[in-house]
């Protein structure tokens, strides 16, 4: 019987090796799989390349992973925000690499990585520094740059509910990068608020079909990044 549930976050991320590429869902704290990230901090792999829209805030979650020196390179669209000090500081010191990608291009690169498309063209960033060094090409008189599909060894994603097949539904704007990151990794690990019986999710409303999911960890009451930051919490 197919059952993708893992007993604990620690077990779910235990095989992440040094040098791995990891996609981490979330737009700010919405959709950020904070318990999976903390498990990754505990597991300790280093030299990671992380693909995530932001770089976390405070000293918990993604920011804590970066603060621990486990991340060699960030691929993201918006590496700073109100409470984001860790990444900027390390980046200024030259201790972490940044590949800055426009948000829509980042989303499409991930989708293409998951869909078996090695490269595509987009008008986004044409004529800007972010297109420098990239191949460009004209179609019907307009200029486009070529962008490459992006894949990862692991994706860490937060969803709302799952069944044992791995079918997922999300909650509001916490959906963001989750569904596409699920498609683009060799191994997709998802934390959900609850497991439901098979059949409880309307097949018309499944957002991520189970084929894209490998492991599920149940975190009934996930921590909220902004609350932890406000409390000045530091992980671990």
């Amino acid at each position, binding site marked *: 019987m197919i059952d993708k549930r893992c007993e604990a976050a620690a077990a779910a991320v235990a095989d992440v090796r040094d040098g791995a590429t990891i996609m981490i869902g979330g737009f700010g704290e919405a959709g950020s799989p904070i318990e999976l990230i903390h498990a990754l901090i505990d597991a300790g792999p280093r030299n990671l390349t992380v693909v995530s829209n932001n770089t976390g805030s405070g000293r918990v979650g993604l920011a804590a992973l970066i603060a621990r020196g486990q991340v060699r390179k960030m691929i993201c669209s918006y590496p700073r925000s109100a409470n984001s000090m860790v990444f900027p500081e390390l980046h200024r010191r030259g201790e972490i690499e940044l590949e800055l990608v426009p948000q829509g291009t980042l989303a499409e690169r991930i989708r293409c990585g998951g869909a078996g498309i090695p490269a595509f063209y987009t008008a986004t960033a044409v004529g800007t520094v972010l297109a420098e060094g990239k191949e460009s090409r004209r179609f019907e008189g307009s200029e486009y740059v070529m962008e490459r599909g992006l894949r990862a060894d692991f994706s860490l994603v937060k969803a709302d509910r799952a069944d044992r097949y791995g079918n997922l539904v999300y909650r509001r*704007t916490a959906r963001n990068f989750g569904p596409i990151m699920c498609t683009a990794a060799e191994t997709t690990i998802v934390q959900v608020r609850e497991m439901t019986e098979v059949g409880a999710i309307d097949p018309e409303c499944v957002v991520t079909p189970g084929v894209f999911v490998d492991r599920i960890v149940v975190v009934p009451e996930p921590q*909220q990044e902004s609350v932890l930051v406000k409390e000045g919490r530091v992980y671990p």
Partner: protein
Amino acid sequence: MKGWSREEMAQRVAADIPDGAYVNLGIGIPELVAQFVPRDREFIFQTENGLLGMGPSPPAGAEDPELINAGKKAVTAIPGAAYFHHADSFTMIRGGHIDVCVLGAMQISARGDLANWSTGEADAIPAVGGAMDLVAGVKRILVMTEHTTKTGEPKIVAECTYPLTGRGVVDRVYTNLAVLDVTEEGVAVRELAPGVSFEEVRAKTGAPLLPMAQESAR
């Protein structure tokens, strides 16, 4: 008072947006536009983090950290809203399905180049978000900004000195002093704020202005 307040600028922008338009509002001042939708019109607000049908801020205490806008502030969803993932969201944006985007600016060039994401300083952490996607894909790009910087430098310039967000993308600029169009011939003043003269606008603009057409002076 001379010139327009931010609220008046927002009202002026909203007045130019047609009924039924799909609108994306940039972070910051552009968010004010949502407060001035004309009574007889309906705009549908898209936020690139995955919501079409964004409503106003919730009352204090009713914020949901999983219902936010692109500026990561708590918002609401109107009846008839839809949630979707990031690739679908940028299908809307890159694919030309959003009618209007209102953005802030650091500089706008005479040819409609926009710089609004980076100072280009060596120690600055660059962060682009969805700005380049929006200017490349949305049908009409409106810029809402003070006419000059805090130190009095023109924001409308012959050539941008800051790193570009996009080339030739700006359609119209709303400042505290005037409404200006980027046209094939150059920058044209369409409307002056109360108490503001064409000469004042010309003096505070770093690019040549086309002579003001008679009918648009008022």
